[in-house]
């Protein structure tokens, strides 16, 4: 299967008063049609910036995409999104790639009715007339689970609860039946009971539309329930990439391993109930430094001299499974060659 999106060696930096923030340091990944790719990482790991860089949504200045490719292909077409002009890429955004953002409160325009905010992209990309767009919107609202959608068309965002607003955001994202939906921490701001609703809704829509979903999150629990594949990011790089089952059962990067051990589990039984959580000591990397070593090395128990000298590339460690680490956890020693 051909990837619908191939990202290669992407580099993004922010030029702030305090210095250069090396936000993305050579990210590579593929996204396949219809799959759900979870991008996991802590704040500052570059997971959002990666996705926003692809479609030119990072604030510029201070942000700047400084290198790499993002080949978007569907049908016969294949184009490098990073090379498109703002006017060209804007038709990709919304038209081919939809977005769901973290905070449904601030992400909706408070002074526009939700209906018009959804209909807006339809008139823009699909050339719908106002009334067409309206009826489609009402339909869509119903589809994302907003009751009484005819009337709600004219409601304002503040009339809605957080969960409802996130449904509106989802409706906006899928309004033009895009090929890809990028969901940037869509449930982080929501309560756990509502989170479950949203996860289910996205899953259902994905089945209906066959859209590929990139789900950015820091919650390994959510990922477990919905992803096909997972990218783990750290310090602006992809440190591990694997199918979801592999990642949880057979993590190969020390960071992933540590992360999985650091979260308590609600279903824990027996000893695990009282066990101390394992801790990844230290603090996240300082992105003001240029990356010349493994970003995780300062916190890594396995780090050896090579880790301090060069940035490890993503190394094939299994089927579809890559880890950016010079240390072979399985064997218990530095990896040979690379």
């Amino acid at each position, binding site marked *: 299967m051909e990837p619908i999106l191939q990202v290669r060696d992407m580099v993004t930096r922010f030029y*702030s*008063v*305090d210095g250069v*923030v090396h936000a993305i340091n050579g990210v590579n990944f593929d996204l396949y049609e219809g799959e759900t790719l979870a991008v996991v990482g802590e704040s*500052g790991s570059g997971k959002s910036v990666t996705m926003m860089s692809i479609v030119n949504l990072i604030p510029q200045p201070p942000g700047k995409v400084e290198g790499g490719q993002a080949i978007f292909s569907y049908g016969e077409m294949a184009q490098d999104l990073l090379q498109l002009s703002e006017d060209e890429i804007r038709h990709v955004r919304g038209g081919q790639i939809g977005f769901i953002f973290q905070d449904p409160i601030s992400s909706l325009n408070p002074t526009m009715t939700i209906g018009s905010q959804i209909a807006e992209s339809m008139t823009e990309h699909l050339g719908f007339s106002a009334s067409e767009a309206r009826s489609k919107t009402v339909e869509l609202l119903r589809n994302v689970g907003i009751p009484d959608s005819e009337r709600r068309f004219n409601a304002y965002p503040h009339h809605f609860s957080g969960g409802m607003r996130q449904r509106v955001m989802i409706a906006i994202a899928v309004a033009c039946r895009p090929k890809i939906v990028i969901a940037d921490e869509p449930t982080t701001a929501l309560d756990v009971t509502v989170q479950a609703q949203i996860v289910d809704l996205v899953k259902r829509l994905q089945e209906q539309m066959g859209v590929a979903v990139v789900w950015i999150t820091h919650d390994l629990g959510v990922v477990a329930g919905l992803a096909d594949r997972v990218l783990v990011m750290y310090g602006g790089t992809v440190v591990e990439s694997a199918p979801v089952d592999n990642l949880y059962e057979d993590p190969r990067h020390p960071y992933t391993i540590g992360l999985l051990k650091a979260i308590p589990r609600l279903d824990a039984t027996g000893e695990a109930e009282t066990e101390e959580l394992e801790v990844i000591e*230290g*603090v996240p*990397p*300082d992105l003001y*430094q240029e990356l010349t*070593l493994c970003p995780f*090395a*300062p916190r890594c*128990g*396995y*780090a*050896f*001299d090579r880790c*301090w000298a060069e940035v490890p590339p993503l190394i094939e460690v299994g089927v579809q499974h890559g880890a950016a680490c010079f240390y072979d956890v399985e064997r218990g020693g530095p990896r040979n060659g690379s």
Partner: protein
Amino acid sequence: MTAATPQVGFDEFEEQTWQKRLAYVGRLLQRDRGGMLGFILFILIVLTAIFAPVIAPHDPLKQNLRAAKQPPAWQEGGSWEQPLGTDTLGRDMLSRIIFGTRVSLTVGFFGVLIAGTLGMVSGLVAGYVGGRVDGAIMGVVNIFLAIPYLVFVVVVAAILGRNLLNVILIFGITDSPIFARVTRGEVLRIRESGYVESAVSAGASTGRILFDHILPNLIGPLITLATFEMSAMIFYEAGLSFLGLSVPPSVPSWGNMLQVGRQYLTIYPWIATWPGVAIAITALTFNLLGDWLRDVLDPRLRRSRK
């Protein structure tokens, strides 16, 4: 596990020294050219005011009616003795402009000081005590804001007479409601902040909360406001002079000079032009500086550092 090479930068903080802070301010300035310009001009203006007697070539009050209305040096009939020309009483324009800096800065600085103090105290009390006290203070503030400024100014000028102190008082009083409003808003915001709650939970007294937590965090917004208001006051002074209500005519204030020069605008344009330019440059300086300070001191903008 291999022995670690020394950790580079990730976990270590560099010691924050005043040199580094200064360098940081320097970087902030460098990035904002307007701020830089404002900053440099500001320093120059302040230095001019302080060292006016040293810089000024002549006594700004020394009249020579026989040499009145001489044009600037580069015009026909001008002399480098009075590079910017002389006014209607034959006083040296350059020296008067230089000494005018003192007046303007004095008016601006002390006017803002009074307005700021009055406004800050009342805003602080209103915002912190709240309830009826807040209602009463803001009621007075709103009354003052609703009364035409001119009525105030004329009345105060008429009661107290024309002198520098009274001009400062007028500005101090009429401008204080703005400070009160801003202070109150900020206090309300800060009062709800986590660190005030934290201080309360640690058992801090009202005084400590006011002076240790609220006041220091008020300074930023108030300094920014003060900068803009100083610029406004330099303007107001000129406006008052237009009405003949500012400092006495004998004081070399830019407003007075402009007011006198106004009637000679087409024949002896330099008499009105120089003070006009001085006002414009000073207002520009304070505006640029204020813009920059707002960017630097506004914590909301700081957040974008990520």
